[in-house]
Every structure is written in structure tokens, then in C-alpha cells.
């Protein structure tokens, strides 16, 4: 397995050569959605969905895309799967360019984009067979195994129109993995799933990566899942990649910033002391002193206060959550 402890900055991400084992390379991709004639001419104002996005995903890596609604995550995934045509930039997989060899590129990719859409009047099995045949054909047993794997065996012969959101997600996942892709792209794969379903998907993703070396690119709004699953996460806002963090970096980053709450007899003097000695921002509310600690040792603060004769009644540390980090990076 790769060693993902190496840190990656945005600048690093723009240069695939710095990555350990680049597999999916997205270079300088921009996309503006225009309307009317401008759609044909490619000129004029529109909504900028992606602005010079560059990323690399390493072989065997689970890579997450994180960002608010409208940030460009789904557009990026659609560009990578060839269903949105970028204005600029290129996408390649293991050296195969999507634009020049779509068939070669997509034969290695399995994708589930947003809420999966199927032919509603047909059964799940019909849809699966149709897509498998479009893929070039797969053994029936393979399809049955996949259906069982995603837990749809009982309802696979029902019309897709009668499926719940969670069942559609499962069928979407089945069609994405049925041909054993080397790159699995999942856009919001756990939307609409119950907790058991989420756990199953999580286990499946890990199993695919660990047993088959499948590379996974996925987006989700569920921060906890990103933190649990991903080796690296790209934070996307307003069509740009604002940061790419490894899991280690995220964990370290979360610990780097903390809010310290101190209840003491002289909060104002304590605030002045902390600011003077450590340079941290402070705020006093009644008898409580709040300190925003960045990369410091909270024990030192406690020690300083006591040494200066301040009586500390309570001392608690609250580290930064991923949500706070996400908000900070994508604001």
C-alpha cells in the first residue's frame, strides 16, 4: 500500500510528478456553463463551475472531494466520467487521455453519479444486464454475485420505479462495480442509505481498495465518512481546489486548533497574560476566559496561569472539528 503520510499542498497537487504513484491526472480543467448561443460559441458569461482545477489521484488511493453545494464536486466528477465536456484542461487515467480515447479510459472506470437514474419501467436486473451488455457483456453469475453483494437480491426483478432511494443507490453501486473497474467514482454514494447501508458501502469501498487495489474517487457531504475513509481529501469551493489534505494532515490539523475554556478568579488578567506570553487570541465572558490555541501546548498555559497566582477552577479543551475546518477552508 502507498504511504500517504507525505503531505500535499495545492501547489503539489498541480504537479503530478510530486505524487507517489499518479493514476488519475486532472490538469487545468475549467468549465463555464453557458446558455443559448453562448453554449455553442463557448464565449460569453455563464456560471463558472470549475476554474483551473488540477488534481492527481494515486493508484489504490481513496480520494475524497469535499465542498459545499454548488462548489463544483459533481461537475468535476462529470468531467472525469466524460459526461460534461470541459472548456479547458485534460483528464487522463494511467496515461490514457479521456478526450482522445474515451473507450480505453472508461473501460477502466465504474461510476455512480449523483442519484442514479435508470429505466424506471424496467426491472433492476434488466437495467443491470443492459448496462453490462453496453460494457461488452458480463457473465450472468458475476451479475448475480454483484446483486447479492449490494443486497438487492430480493428486489432485483422489481421495476426500478418502485425502488426507494437507498435501493437505487445500491443498484447504482452494482452497475459501477460489476466490471471490476480499476477506478471507482462515486458521487454522494451514501445519500438516502440507512446506517446499515452506509456501513455496508463503507466496508465495500475499503474491501475493493484493500483486496483489489481499486482506486476510489468519491464525494460526500458527510464529513465523518470522508475522515474515516479517505486517504486524501480535496476541499473544493467556488470551482477551485482550495486545499488537498492527507488524512494525517486532517487529523493533525484538527488537533492544531483548539478552543480552551478557563474558569478562573481573574479572567481579564489571565487573558492579558496569555496574549502577552503566547500571542493567542482571547475573549472573556464573565468568569470564563476563551483562548484560541494554535499549535501550542495547553498544559503550558495552565502552568503559566498558576505560576502567576491565578486560581483556576476549571480548564477544558475543545479541539477543532472537521466541520469547522471544512467551513474555514471553503468559506
Amino acid at each position: 500500500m502507498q504511504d500517504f503520510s507525505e503531505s500535499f499542498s495545492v501547489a503539489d497537487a498541480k504537479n503530478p510528478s510530486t505524487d507517489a504513484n499518479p493514476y488519475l491526472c486532472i490538469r487545468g480543467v475549467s468549465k463555464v456553463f453557458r446558455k443559448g448561443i453562448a453554449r455553442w460559441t463557448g464565449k460569453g458569461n455563464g456560471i463558472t463551475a470549475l476554474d483551473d482545477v488540477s488534481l492527481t489521484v494515486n493508484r489504490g488511493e481513496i480520494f475524497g472531494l469535499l465542498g459545499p453545494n454548488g462548489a463544483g464536486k459533481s461537475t468535476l466528477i462529470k468531467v472525469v466520467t466524460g459526461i460534461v465536456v470541459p472548456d479547458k484542461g485534460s483528464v487522463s487515467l494511467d496515461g490514457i487521455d479521456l478526450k482522445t480515447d474515451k473507450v480505453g479510459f472508461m473501460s477502466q472506470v465504474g461510476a455512480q453519479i449523483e442519484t442514479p437514474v435508470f429505466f424506471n419501467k424496467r426491472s433492476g436486473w434488466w437495467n443491470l444486464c443492459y448496462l453490462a451488455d453496453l460494457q461488452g457483456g458480463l457473465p450472468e453469475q458475476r451479475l448475480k454475485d454483484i446483486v447479492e453483494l449490494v443486497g438487492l437480491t430480493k428486489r432485483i426483478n422489481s421495476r426500478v420505479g418502485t425502488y426507494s432511494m437507498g435501493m437505487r443507490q445500491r443498484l447504482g453501486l452494482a452497475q459501477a462495480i460489476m466490471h471490476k473497474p480499476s477506478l471507482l467514482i462515486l458521487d454522494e454514494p451514501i445519500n438516502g442509505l440507512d446506517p446499515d447501508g452506509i456501513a455496508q458501502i463503507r466496508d465495500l469501498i475499503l474491501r475493493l481498495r484493500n483486496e483489489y487495489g481499486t482506486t476510489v474517487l468519491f464525494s460526500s457531504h458527510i464529513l465523518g465518512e470522508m475522515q474515516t475513509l479517505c486517504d486524501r481529501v480535496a476541499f473544493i469551493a467556488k470551482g477551485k481546489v482550495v486545499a488537498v489534505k492527507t488524512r494525517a494532515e486532517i487529523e493533525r490539523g484538527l488537533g492544531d486548533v483548539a478552543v480552551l475554556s478557563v474558569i478562573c478568579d481573574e479572567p481579564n488578567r489571565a487573558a492579558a497574560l496569555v496574549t502577552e506570553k503566547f500571542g493567542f487570541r482571547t475573549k472573556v465572558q464573565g468568569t470564563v476566559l476563551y483562548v484560541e490555541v494554535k499549535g501550542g501546548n495547553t498544559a503550558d498555559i495552565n502552568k503559566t496561569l498558576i505560576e502567576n497566582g491565578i486560581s483556576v477552577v476549571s480548564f477544558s479543551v475543545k479541539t477543532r472539528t472537521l466541520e469547522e475546518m471544512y467551513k474555514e477552508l471553503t468559506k
Partner: protein
Amino acid sequence: MKGLATAYSLECKKIFSARAFWIFAVIILLLCILVTASFRTIGNLIEGMDESAVGGSDYGASAAQLAEIYRAQLDEYLAQVADGTIERKPSDTTETYLKNMIAICEYCDEHGLDISKLNTFGSIGSLKMSPDDYASMMMQIIFGFSTIMSIVLAARVVAGETEDGTMRMQLTRPIKRSTLLTAKHGAVFTASMTLGIVLTVVFMIVGALFFDGISRDVVLVDAYQNVAVINPYAAIFILLLFFAAMTELTVQFTIFCGSLTGGTGALVIPLVLYLFADTVAAFLYDTYIPFVGLFTNMGWAGALTPQGAPINGMSIYSMLAVTAVWFAVMTAVNYISFEKRDLK
């Protein structure tokens, strides 16, 4: 090519296994049976009608005599136009019709053919329903509805699937967009033509059983008074080719409308043009607008049958050239647009 063949067979399978396709096919079948029953009844009713009706080729007039009758009618018509008794309107095709009839009669007279033994895929003044009249009418009904079906199918499998998101799922497979579009186009064409041909064969057999079979050679005449007499089966084959060309134009036009406007436009624009444009134009402006037909599909009918050129004074060659250019433009727009389109 393998990818195209696979996609094509899958699209065909998809269309032929759709319940809506079979419902539509059954509706056309029932309609044909109804029309057949009506013709049979009307045919019996008019058996005893006045056989002295002018121009009745089934009543013993020779080609030369009929030519004289039509010439006299044409002269009278032109004289009335000249002295202002008749105000000639844009939709008035009397002159073309009479000239066509004269051309047919002169051709038969010149070649020693018995005009009463021929059929035109449109009567020459006959009140009786001949087996061939029946066959030609059924073919027009069948292919009229097949055209409507090709519009509905083409709108559904290209613009419809693009709008409802199922196209997105298909395009995440290792298949080129152009290949998928070609496969869908081919499948719609195949489905429409299959329906048309199967029903035509069925009703040819029905015609043979109820109307004594296909008996007579066929006179073909175009809007420029070119005449030819051919074997009825060859005529049917030519008509099938003709319908194939019309279906292809229709499918391409429907996809073209979808390329420009999306799903609703892909369905509504061709259907409205096909079903109502000529009628509305005739009602509002007392003119027919075969020009519109030329751009959908039916302009061909005007030029290759005795009805008239798609645009007054337009030769058959220029009409074919315009159609070819228009077809090329539609094809280019359809493929480029499909290749560049961002899907939902």
C-alpha cells in the same frame, strides 16, 4: 464496429421490448382493420353507382379518349383562368393534375397499353376500389403512422433519455457518444420500418384475400410528367425505399429538433409540422407549404408523385440537392451537438 453492433442490438432490443411500442403497433393494426372493413363496405355500396362518371378508366374508355377528355378539361380550365372566371390560388393543383393525367394517357396510347389494366397508386377517376387502390391506401396509412412512431421513438431515445438522465448512465460505459447516437438512430429507423413493412405485408395479404390480389401493373408519374409503367411488386419495393428515405429524414429531423430545443421540442415540433403544418397553412393562407414538408420528410412525396413540386417551379434534381444538403446539415448538427453536450 463491434461496439456499434452491440449498442445497436441493445437499442433494438430495448425498443422492441417496450410495451408502448406494441400498444402503438396494435393501435395501427386495429385502425387498418377498421379502414379495410370500411373500404369493403363502401366498395360494395358504390358497385351500383352511375358508371358514366367522367374519366372512369374502369368503364371502357381508351387511353386516347381519356387523353382527349383531360385535354379538353385543361383547355377549359386555362381559358377560365385567363378570362378571370376562376381565380387561381396557390393551393390549386388542377393544372398539374390534368397534365399528369394527359401524360399518362399519352404514354399508354403511345406504347399500346390498356389503361384499364393499369393502376397509378391513386385512382384515375375510378370510383371502384381496386386491389391496388386498397394496397396504396393501406401503405399510406401504415407509413403515415410509422412516421409518427419514428418521431415519438426518436424523441424518446435521444432527447428524452438525455433529459431524464438515463443517457448519463449509458455514457459512463466505454462507448463513444457518436457510436451511441448512431446505434439509437439505427434502432429507431429499424423499428419504424419493421412495423411499416410487417403491416404492409399483412395487409397485402388481406388485400389479396378481400380484393382479389394485386393484379395490375403500376403507372408512376412525377410532378414533371415523367411516366413509367412497372411491375406492381417492383412498385411496392420502390415505395418501400421511398418510405425508408422519408423515415430516415424524419428520424434525423426529430433528433435535430431535440439538439436545438430539448426533449419537448424534439417531440412537438416534428409532430406539429408533420400533422398540422399543411392543414393550418391551407386554412390560413389558402396555400400549402410543401417547403416545410421538404424539411421534415413529405416534400419527397410532392415531387415523386403527381401532387406537385415541393416548391413551385423547382426541378426534381434541385429538390434532391436541397434535401441532401439539408440532411447533411442536420446530421452534422446532431453529431456535433451530441458530442459537445453536457449531460445532466
